[in-house]
């Protein structure tokens, strides 16, 4: 037996000795509890005790069934939403992005950013300005 084990044993013995409560007060408490037990016999169950248990069981079953149906409905709705989102994500996009090269995609993107300054729109604006200028000169 090692010193450590002996030390641990000593500590445990001291601890269990210190745990022994005062005998007289402990006995008094034990007697009090015994008298309490004798003064409190097991009560007779009511006539509706077992039917009451079954009623509660049925009630809980019904509520768990309702919850089960609700959970199933919720799961079905989640699956439907997932399918719809998946279909939307899989719908064909601009073919340039899917089939063209990286450079083609960059060009398309660049052109779309320049949209407001497109050449035919600039030509239209300049024609409008010319006609306005002419009308001012006539006046």
């Amino acid at each position, binding site marked *: 037996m090692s010193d450590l084990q002996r030390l641990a044993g000593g500590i445990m013995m001291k601890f269990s000795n210190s745990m022994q409560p005062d005998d007289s007060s402990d006995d008094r408490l034990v007697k009090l509890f015994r008298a309490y037990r004798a003064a*409190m016999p097991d009560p007779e169950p009511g006539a509706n005790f077992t039917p009451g248990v079954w009623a509660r069981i049925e009630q809980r079953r019904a509520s768990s069934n309702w919850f089960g149906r609700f959970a199933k409905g919720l799961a079905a709705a989640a699956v439907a939403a997932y399918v719809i989102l998946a279909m939307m994500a899989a719908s064909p996009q601009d073919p340039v992005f899917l089939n063209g090269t990286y450079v083609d995609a960059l060009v398309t993107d660049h052109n779309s950013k320049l949209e407001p300054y497109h050449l035919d729109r600039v030509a239209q604006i300049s024609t409008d300005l010319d006609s306005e200028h002419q009308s001012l000169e006539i006046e």
Partner: protein
Amino acid sequence: MLVEFGLIEEAQKGDASAFNQIVSAYRRRILGTISRIISRPEDVEDVAQEVFVRLYFSLEQLRTPEVFEPWLYRLTVNACYDYLRKSKRKPEFRMSDLSEQQVMMADAAAGSRFEGDESEKRRNREMVAELLGAVSEEDRILLTLKEVEGLSLKDLEKIYDVNENALKVRLFRARQRVLKKHEEQLRRSGELKDRKTVTGAPGTSAKTSEAKG
């Protein structure tokens, strides 16, 4: 065991009549245990029914019928905890909350109904109920199971799922707390007796003579 293992196995398979037999066998014992843990007699049956409902829905989880009783006690303890936690919100009515005059009036009223032994039993019940009511739910339930229900440390080990040493420490501490309360109780009742002796002398106060009347 109040029932045979075979009956428990039948109930586990879903046999309603086997379950009914288990309820019939254990309901009185469970009602008794609960009545000694919670202090409202009107709620005892309610909590006991809850125990059996929990038993019904968890019976299939029981691996061996040998541990049925500790397991039923565990369900009972848990149901009592739940009840006590809920009832913390409701104010509890105890004899110790009454004024001295009210206690004397209650004693007088009760005295006409209970004689001798009954009155002694009632006093003991109130004393222990007050003691257990003054400590925590954990201490109350543990002490009731050990000291009042007479369960062994082995049974308690299975119910609480802790080792014997830990249980001994918990029991010791719970007992110490209750003893402390008991000392206070004795001191208070001694003071009350002294006060009664003083007020019982000629020239008593109006309050005492009113109570006597």
